[in-house]
């Protein structure tokens, strides 16, 4: 059963006062690689585990740039409820084949919406469906060296 864990990463958003908790910018970043149309791995710097996101989302533009395959024959118009409000978007249902840097050699398929209106500056968001069908995801705030603000563990279901 492949299992891996990553530290919750954080940045100091306002160096003048790093000791305020609201100025520690926490993200559960997962470094991953995606398979392109030729079955080769393209390294993505970071994907963000987003429990407020229903589905895994990648920009269609980004997928085209990196030659990551997705079906374009059935575009659908959806209103997506995003952190920035409701956004009308053209989306394509597809799958993303990923390998996580912390779990080399294991390939995972996640349902993915490829969105034409995904914010250009947004990385891949790992949403709940069907991430939690593939993994048991545990957030653990226990502090340890290198993981001062906790860790996230991904364990595949037996």
């Amino acid at each position, binding site marked *: 059963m492949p299992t891996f864990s990553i530290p919750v990463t954080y940045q100091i958003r306002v160096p003048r006062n790093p000791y305020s908790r609201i100025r520690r910018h926490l993200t559960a970043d997962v470094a991953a690689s995606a398979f392109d149309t030729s079955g080769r791995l393209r*390294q*993505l710097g970071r994907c963000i585990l987003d429990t407020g996101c229903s589905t895994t989302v990648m920009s269609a533009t980004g997928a085209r740039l990196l030659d990551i395959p997705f079906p374009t024959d059935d575009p659908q118009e959806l209103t997506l409820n995003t952190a920035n409000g409701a956004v009308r978007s053209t989306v394509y249902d597809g799958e993303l084949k990923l390998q996580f840097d912390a779990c080399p050699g294991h390939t995972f398929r996640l349902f993915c919406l490829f969105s034409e209106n995904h914010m250009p500056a947004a990385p891949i968001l790992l949403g709940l469906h069907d991430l939690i069908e593939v993994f048991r995801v545990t957030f653990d705030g226990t502090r340890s*060296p290198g993981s001062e603000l906790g860790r996230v563990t991904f364990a595949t279901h037996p």
Partner: protein
Amino acid sequence: MATDLLTPPTTEPYLARATRILSGGVRPDDVLPVTPEVAYAVDTFVNFLRTEFQTEADEKRKAEYRSRMLISFHHPGVWIAYLETQYGPVVLAVGEGQVGEFVRTIPYEVCKDAIYTIPENWYVD
């Protein structure tokens, strides 16, 4: 961030430069320069770890944080292809046009270590 930071400071065509770097010909001036803002951010992080968690950041951790800060400072919110080197991050292509052309043009065996990402926006102090 100002758009004049979007192009690596070189007159060498970016695909030729990328090929040279990916073939092992990286030069110190290829690496993103550490600006005072980035140096300050790294120092702050190191001091924060020390005072808040009594943890001393080793060189590897400092380098990782510096790299993240560097790409965020120089290329916030745009697609880039870059390479992590022993000297620091080296940006190979910037923006959708260059990254797309980079992926289509450079043979995979040459660019398999390239990382494609959209750096976070630089924070406001």
